[in-house]
């Protein structure tokens, strides 16, 4: 009996998903609850467990491809009775499992077994096989208690003893693994006070990248302030003359242009460290990544060769890229290859923050909100100036304090001095 497995509902208003990983192949013997593939929708990524079992005779999807909800993912050869009804079904989700008799030439659904919807917020993947009543995880009561106390789901611990029995050291090793992988104590979605949300691909990448950065790079953060009173006046008067639909000259664009000049002067800040071979790559080209807050999470589109572009080019490109990033139309290639990153949170507010380096880069510039502050001059006069807080995060393995401070100071000086600005722009 050939049994088709169709992609069940994966969430509200989602009718298509991307296959990130395909974990089975034609000829494999598929078990119920075995994970067939990992898919990603624009809302979430999740694993799709099988509702059927048997030998896979055809596979209609491929890794990286798209799959429609309700379409046939694969067909298995097996006994119809072996397909399991996994519980109370919501018939509104429609049939996902259709049994086709071999003799019928045109596929004719003879029986539909409703399959419960795969919730959008999928809890940890179901644990396959054994009847929980008959055979709970093979661990003694004291080991089960230890697991609960450590927040470890005992059914996910691999036992190292004969018969797969789980020892206290297995539980501890598992807990340690969870912690080093950046997970806290495992919670389960069974607690009514907890909602389970699978990490999106973006979130996972950010999490992994930031963990790697923070745990491997010895960060130093250099704080400074740039007096942008004059710059701001110039910028505003320039913008006033622009037509309504022209992109505005922004502080970010100005900083990018200054960075182009400064990174040439301080090439170590535009480098990449190769610890393994004990060498440093100085990058001749300067590509500045600009952190953009999108509804999918943080994204960093890259403005290439900023040293070869005019400020107006940069303004134009920045506006275009930010817009396409927010609407999800940015191309993957445009999110790669930055040599230095800029993150400007001034639009939101705040006094200061310490940005984390975006590996494999070695430095990042954070910009907070400009505020009017009293500035005391040597002659005793006090002036109210518009001060822009800057923070350079840098890799101390490559860049020393003096160099970091000099870079930041020069940036601030340059922004504060319209003459310097003219030269550099």
């Amino acid at each position, binding site marked *: 009996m050939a049994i088709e497995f169709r992609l069940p509902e994966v969430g509200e208003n989602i009718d298509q998903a991307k296959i990130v990983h395909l974990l089975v192949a034609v000829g494999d013997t598929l078990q119920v609850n075995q994970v067939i593939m990992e898919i990603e929708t624009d809302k979430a990524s999740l694993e799709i467990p099988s509702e059927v079992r048997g030998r896979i005779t055809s596979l209609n999807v491929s890794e990286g491809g798209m799959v429609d909800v309700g379409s046939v993912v694969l067909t298995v050869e097996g006994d119809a009775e072996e397909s399991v009804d996994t519980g109370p079904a919501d018939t509104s989700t429609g049939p996902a499992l259709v049994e086709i008799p071999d003799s019928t030439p045109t596929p004719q659904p003879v029986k539909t077994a409703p399959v419960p919807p795969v919730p959008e917020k999928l809890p940890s993947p179901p644990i396959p096989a054994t*009847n929980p009543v*008959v*055979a*709970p*995880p*093979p*661990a*003694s*009561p004291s080991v*089960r*208690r230890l697991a*609960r*106390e450590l*927040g470890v789901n005992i059914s996910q611990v691999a036992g190292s003893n*004969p*018969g*797969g*029995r*789980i020892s206290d050291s297995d539980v501890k090793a598992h807990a340690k693994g969870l912690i080093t992988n950046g997970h806290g104590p495992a919670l389960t979605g069974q607690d009514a006070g907890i909602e389970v949300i699978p990490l999106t691909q973006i979130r996972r990448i950010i999490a992994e990248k930031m963990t790697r950065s923070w745990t491997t790079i010895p960060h130093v953060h250099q704080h400074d302030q740039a007096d942008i009173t004059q710059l701001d006046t110039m910028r505003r008067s320039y913008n006033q003359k622009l037509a309504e639909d022209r992109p505005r000259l922004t502080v970010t664009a100005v900083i990018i242009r200054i960075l182009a000049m400064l990174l040439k002067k301080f090439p170590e800040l535009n480098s990449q460290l190769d610890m393994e071979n004990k060498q440093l790559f100085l990058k001749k080209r300067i590509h500045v990544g600009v952190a953009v807050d999108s509804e999918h999470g943080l994204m960093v589109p890259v403005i290439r060769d900023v040293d070869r572009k005019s400020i107006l080019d940069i303004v134009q490109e920045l506006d275009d890229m930010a817009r396409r990033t927010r609407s999800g139309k940015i191309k993957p290639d445009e999110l790669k290859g930055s040599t230095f990153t800029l993150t400007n949170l001034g639009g939101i507010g705040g006094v200061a923050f310490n940005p984390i380096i975006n590996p494999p880069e070695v430095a990042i510039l954070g910009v907070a909100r400009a505020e009017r502050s009293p500035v005391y001059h040597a002659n005793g006069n006090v002036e109210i100036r518009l001060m822009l807080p800057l923070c350079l995060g840098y890799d101390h393995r490559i860049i020393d304090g003096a160099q970091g401070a000099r870079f930041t100071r020069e940036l601030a000086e340059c922004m504060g001095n319209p003459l310097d600005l003219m030269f550099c722009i």
Partner: protein
Amino acid sequence: MSDNNYTQIVVIGAGPGGYTAAFHAANMGLEVTLINDEGQPGGVCLQRGCIPSKALLHIARLINEAREVSEMGITFGKPGINIEKLRGFKDGVIEKLGGGIRQLASARKVNYLHARAEFTCSETLKLTAGRGAENIPKSLHFGHCIIATGSSPIVPGIFNISDERVMDSTGSLELKDIPDKLLVIGGGYIGLEMGTIYQALGSAVSVVEMTPTLLTGVDRDLVKPLQHRINRSFEKIMLETRVVSLKTANNGITALLEDNDQAREETYDRALVSIGRTPNTGRLGLENTNVEIIERGFIKVDERMQTADPSIFAIGDVAGEPMLAHKASKEAKVATESIAGKKTIYDVACVPAVVFTDPEIAWAGLTEDEAAEKGIRVEIGRFPWAASGRAATLARQEGLTKVIADPESGRILGVGMVGVGAGDMIAEGVIALEMAANIEDIAESIHPHPTLSETMMEAAEVCLGHSTHMIPRENR
């Protein structure tokens, strides 16, 4: 009443679930009030269940052994039975253990109140003082409540004929007299245990059971030796037979029995109705709380024993089958530890069950019938006590020990036993299941010789195909 009538934890019911909960909570430093609707603690288990029945079953065993030992050349005279004194012994046991619980309660500063409790809302109980009880507040506010009110025997209306000779298990344990002819309605463990007691004391015991088997749910090979024995010692075992009605007659209770369309009347001196128990959840004012009642009157609880009302927990018979004291005690610990904020859940591998007949039947974990029903493939090692030296010395070789294991991993999934002392021996099976032991673990552990516990080791060896005292299958 003033607001100082507040307790951190109140436990309703002082049976093996309730008093364990109270003591465990007190051990953890919580302030506990234990409310019981009778003066003495202990619940059904101590007052009119496990303990008195076992006291009497011990006597029954002595009487039977004294008779059977004549086969070995030792003859005792017919036993003289002083029923007042016997009742005194049984009541003395209850008194002693009840006093012990009171002592343990006061040593832990558990506030014991003899009163009936009813919820007025999710945080407050209305109390009605028990007879003779003093200083009982009218109401009590609590942080958390544990309901442990147990269960009562079911006596359907047709058997409720206002004649004290028709008894439930409670009445039968009072031991008013020793009827010449006793009818036991229901072939479950209570009926068979009480039947065993009355048979030994001299009654002609007849058992009537609606279904085709005694002890429904227990593997047949475990029931067989018991059935074989009581077929001889009991007057009559009537399977697939219904009691249509009970009537008061001059010389006893007349039962109208019906099997395969044939009806007949029989008269007995007393009748015992033992067809099941029902949880005591009806008169607690639960409708004033968010506690959810499910089928058969049980309270719905989660794995922490918490009800749908977050401040209220439920344990023991009210929280679902099996209605066994040791399950209640375990649940008591789970509930109190949950309330104390510990990450405890009820995740036991098995709840052992014992039928204290002669021979005893005990099992834990998966049964053979359950495996067949659920299509679970198992390997079974059976060791008949006919091959046990110790059983031979006791002249009780009808027993059987079996282990049920996963054929792939060898992990033990169930253990079943029938024979003298099976109830005590099943604990090894429980440990094996909880520790996720496999067949080899049991077979490789030295069991003391000569004891009945060796049968467990040998059953495991049968599974492995090399029992010392059994001829391997292929050689037979």
